[in-house]
């Protein structure tokens, strides 16, 4: 059988795991897909290359297909999000001295509400700057939610700064931001380098957020429905494999390779196992569901989650709710994945 070649962009993050595993563990080839992965240094590059047709699909922040479809960016393009590549997977870190102050104010790993109150109190005294990797991201929504939980308002009480994940520790040490919400392993890397303490997992703020999706050009998806179906099956099988505890060490080793994350595998393993070294004293914070790769029914886009996202981003993006809800329903349509995953016994939850 000749394989259908599919090029796909990705950003060096632990939650690129399903794409990497589908390729390296052979699930894609078994499904008849010759998957070619292209690493990009920024979400802007992913966005531009997909919208200009350099390649048809990529690992994307879940709000990105929505933003692209609405024309927020240089080249409007209709992008679908037919498959969810992972739930959660972010961490909130703070520069060491600030983290100590926040703990004195009651912040504690795993306690989002107490941490939120500490952050809001501290920011009212001296305005804090929060780094997120991209303007149209779940990270920004998690920060806004956290501030609401602490009785604050992210749009009024904080400065939001965009900073590249892989340079997070430098950005924190240079004092350009005070807190960062970022995808793993970059939070763990910042802790490991002595730049930061980890305050919370993103999952502690909101569980089962659709963090990354496969973003696919609509015209490509419509022209290649069978190939897309096979790829989605390969990704779901990669997810089931990645969900087994005995796979995690291999997965971390593969992700750590120079062509993928180029990062020590023990740091990658932290998010996979949900056990994080959170400070310079070696204290460990547990959150077994910090990153869910074997999402099962949640591989299939959930219309309720799409509406939630549409309503959340209406204010920060400055777009009317009705327009967002319509676009979100089109982006996150569940039908394609439902049909593709049915043979694997995975049905919408």
């Amino acid at each position, binding site marked *: 059988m000749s394989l259908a070649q599919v090029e796909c962009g990705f950003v060096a993050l632990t939650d690129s795991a399903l794409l990497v595993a589908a390729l390296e563990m052979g699930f894609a080839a078994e499904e008849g897909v010759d998957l070619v992965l292209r690493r990009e240094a920024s979400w802007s590059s992913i966005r531009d290359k997909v919208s200009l047709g350099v390649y048809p699909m990529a690992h994307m922040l879940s709000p990105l297909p929505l933003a692209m479809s609405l024309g927020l960016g*240089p080249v409007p393009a209709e992008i679908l999000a037919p498959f969810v590549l992972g739930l959660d997977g972010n961490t909130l870190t703070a520069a060491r001295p600030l983290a100590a102050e926040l703990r004195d104010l009651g912040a504690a790993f795993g306690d989002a509400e107490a941490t939120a109150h500490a952050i809001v109190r501290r920011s009212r005294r001296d305005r804090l700057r929060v780094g997120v990797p991209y303007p149209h991201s779940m990270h920004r929504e998690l920060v806004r939610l956290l501030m609401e939980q602490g009785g604050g308002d992210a749009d009024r009480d904080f400065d939001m700064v965009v900073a590249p994940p892989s340079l997070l520790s430098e950005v924190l040490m240079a004092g350009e931001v005070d807190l960062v919400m970022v995808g793993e392993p970059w939070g763990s890397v910042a802790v490991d380098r002595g730049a930061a303490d980890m305050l919370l997992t993103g999952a502690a703020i909101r569980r089962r957020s659709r963090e990354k999706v496969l973003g696919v050009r609509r015209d490509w998806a419509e022209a290649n429905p069978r190939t897309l179906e096979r790829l989605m099956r390969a990704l779901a099988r990669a997810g089931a494999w990645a969900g087994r505890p005995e796979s995690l060490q291999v997965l971390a080793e593969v992700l750590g390779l120079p062509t993928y994350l180029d990062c020590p595998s023990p740091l990658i393993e932290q998010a996979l196992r949900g056990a994080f070294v959170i400070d310079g004293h070696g204290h460990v914070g547990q959150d077994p569901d910090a990153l869910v790769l074997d999402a099962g029914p949640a591989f299939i886009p959930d219309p309720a989650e799409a509406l939630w996202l549409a309503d959340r981003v209406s204010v920060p993006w400055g777009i009317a709710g009705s327009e967002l809800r319509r676009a979100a329903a089109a982006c996150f349509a569940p039908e394609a994945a439902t049909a593709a995953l049915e043979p694997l016994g995975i049905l919408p939850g």
Partner: protein
Amino acid sequence: MDALHIVVIDTDADRAAMIRGGLEDEGEYRVSIVSEMQGLAARLARLDADIVLIGLENPNRDTLEQLTAAAGPSERPVAMFVDRSDRGMMQAAIAAGVSAYVVDGLRRDRVRPVLETAIARFHSFARLQAELTATKAALAERKTIDRAKGILMKARGIDEEAAYALLRKTAMDQGKRVAELAEGLVTAAGLLS
């Protein structure tokens, strides 16, 4: 009309200098180079650029995205690329590995030559890099071949010319490159000595 102020963001000093040279040859431009990525947003705000050029491989691109998304009253809004209709130009820029942020409202005919020059310079820099890599590899191969010749000369008591002829003939017989065969010989000799 004031000279356009172009800011080149690049951690590679050689490439930045090449782009600056290219732009200054082409026209009346004021070119600033930013090679330090710390405090990038603040630095850019101070520089008040008309056009910002940045390599696609630079992760700080997402920081520039924020500037395009949130333009306060004091900031000058920047938009990506020349304008949305100029797809061909965007594709050429992406292929060359450069992206451009252009102040809103700047006339297209003023932006185009800048972008064309940047695209050309990005291409020639990539070519130079490729040539450098190829030259290095060729030098390394030559060293290996010289060592293999030396081994043969000593082991078989033949002169340099005969040693090379032997290497070349054996390589041809085995369908290998001379350098490949030489590499194997050097490794084997190292193991046996």
